[in-house]
């Protein structure tokens, strides 16, 4: 690596490093003055290693990611299916428009009481809320993606005499893949946020709950460790989706 390249690589890290250093200094000073509310990043790192070694980190991370993924799968399958129907049929879109517009703005977290009554504490409640939260963006984005398919391609399918099923699988679905991936990336972000929120608010499982427990047992170091870790997990998941999107786009013949 040339010296220039090295500095270029270093540049994005400067600001976080300064921030962490400032926080370290501030938190140390606060605890020296007798405050229990904050812990310096060095203590958080120690707590993080402890959680990683005793396995609680992986167990909670696995729970949150697994539930978010399963909920997203549920919401995405339903959202994509209904989005296709609403996008292809003007009559269906008119029929569904009012219901969609009324239900879509309901904050998914507002469903926690209802989901708790229906499913009790546990995985099923969290799944239901994640599915609900991811269903809407996928529905709306897939519907608009279908409506924006090049009309010429649909004419080609008519002239060639493709059946409705062939048209769906050979024209419509491949045509919306790039937009579908944008929708899925959004869905992944929503799923993670909602899963952690539900764990903080209600479900005694996963990363959100672990962070709450740390806070309630006056362990700010562990709490900060979880907070940082959740950020890292979110970053990694999004980066993975971006990579997947690029690979798929290339396979679909879309040149960057």
């Amino acid at each position, binding site marked *: 690596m040339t010296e220039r390249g090295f500095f270029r690589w270093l540049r994005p890290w400067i600001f976080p490093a300064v921030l962490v250093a400032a926080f370290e200094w501030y938190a140390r000073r606060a605890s020296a003055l007798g405050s229990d509310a904050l812990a310096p990043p060095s203590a958080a790192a120690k707590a993080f290693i402890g959680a990683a070694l005793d396995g609680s980190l992986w167990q909670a991370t696995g729970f949150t990611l697994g539930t978010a993924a399963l909920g997203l799968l549920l919401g995405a399958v339903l959202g994509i299916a209904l989005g296709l129907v609403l996008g292809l049929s003007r009559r269906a879109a008119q029929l569904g428009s009012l219901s969609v517009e009324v239900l879509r703005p309901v904050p998914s977290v507002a469903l926690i009481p209802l989901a708790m009554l229906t499913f009790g504490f546990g995985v099923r409640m969290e799944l239901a809320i994640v599915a609900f939260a991811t269903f809407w963006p996928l529905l709306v984005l897939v519907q608009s993606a279908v409506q924006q398919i*090049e009309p*010429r*391609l649909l*004419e*080609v*399918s*008519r*002239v*060639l*005499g*493709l*059946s409705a099923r*062939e048209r769906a699988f*050979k*024209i419509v679905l*491949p*045509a919306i*893949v790039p937009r579908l991936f944008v929708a899925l990336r959004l869905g992944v972000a929503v799923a993670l946020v909602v899963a952690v929120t539900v764990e903080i608010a209600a479900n005694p499982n996963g990363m959100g709950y672990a962070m709450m427990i740390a806070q309630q047992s006056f362990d700010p170091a562990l709490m900060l460790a979880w907070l940082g870790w959740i950020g890292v997990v979110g970053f990694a998941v999004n980066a993975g989706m971006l990579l997947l999107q690029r690979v798929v786009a290339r*396979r*679909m*013949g*879309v*040149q960057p």
Partner: protein
Amino acid sequence: MNAAADFLHFDGVAIRLGGREILSPTSFDVARGEFVCIVGPSGCGKTTLLRAASGLVTASAGEVRRNGVKMTEPSREVAFVFQDYGRALLPWRTVEGNVSLALEAAGVPASERAPRIADVLGKVGLGKHAQKFPVQLSGGMQQRAQIARCLAQKPELMMMDEPFGALDALTRQSLQDELARLVRETGLTVLFVTHDLEEAIYLGDRVIALQANPGPGRPSLARMIDVKIPRPRDQLTTKEHPEYLQLRRELFAFIEQGHD
């Protein structure tokens, strides 16, 4: 009616879209194996006429009959070459895959597709580009790919909507000659819309001129000219042929008149 008139017959075809008369009642016949070019100023309804003939739009009055049967829906025996080749090809399929789509639609078993794809790609000179995606091809090659897909349909009638309008002059000339050769070899009947009068005379057995806004009660069809220049034609001698020059003068004079 003679036997030729039974092949493709336009009987008072008129089309209104959004309250505007795009095409006023137009009647003419096309014989099997004939190459008919349709010219006219923009807005005269030539593309709409083609779309009606392929069943993509329904006539508001009159009807199009093919082999004596009224056309209401697109049929696999009628291929359609769109002007905007870039939008008519599936960007996520290779040239081969795009041609294959026509065969898949027709229910050709997978084992029989490869030789037929190779055959039509060879005919349009894309044999070496089967694995390329549309974005990797020039405009002329993309249009060849679309023509190959239409040939794979094994149509008896091919509709071409200004297929070479967006191409540069040299590419256009070579595609004209290849199309003329393909049509001679396959015996296809072609309806070819163009705004280029010289192209129409060069390619057609007959040129049909439409006029825009003919006025109430009058047909869009304004002129029908038989082109008796011998085939095979070529870019140099045909364009010096006395009949070519005379028809060219006649058509240009007519179109200019139409604008006054």
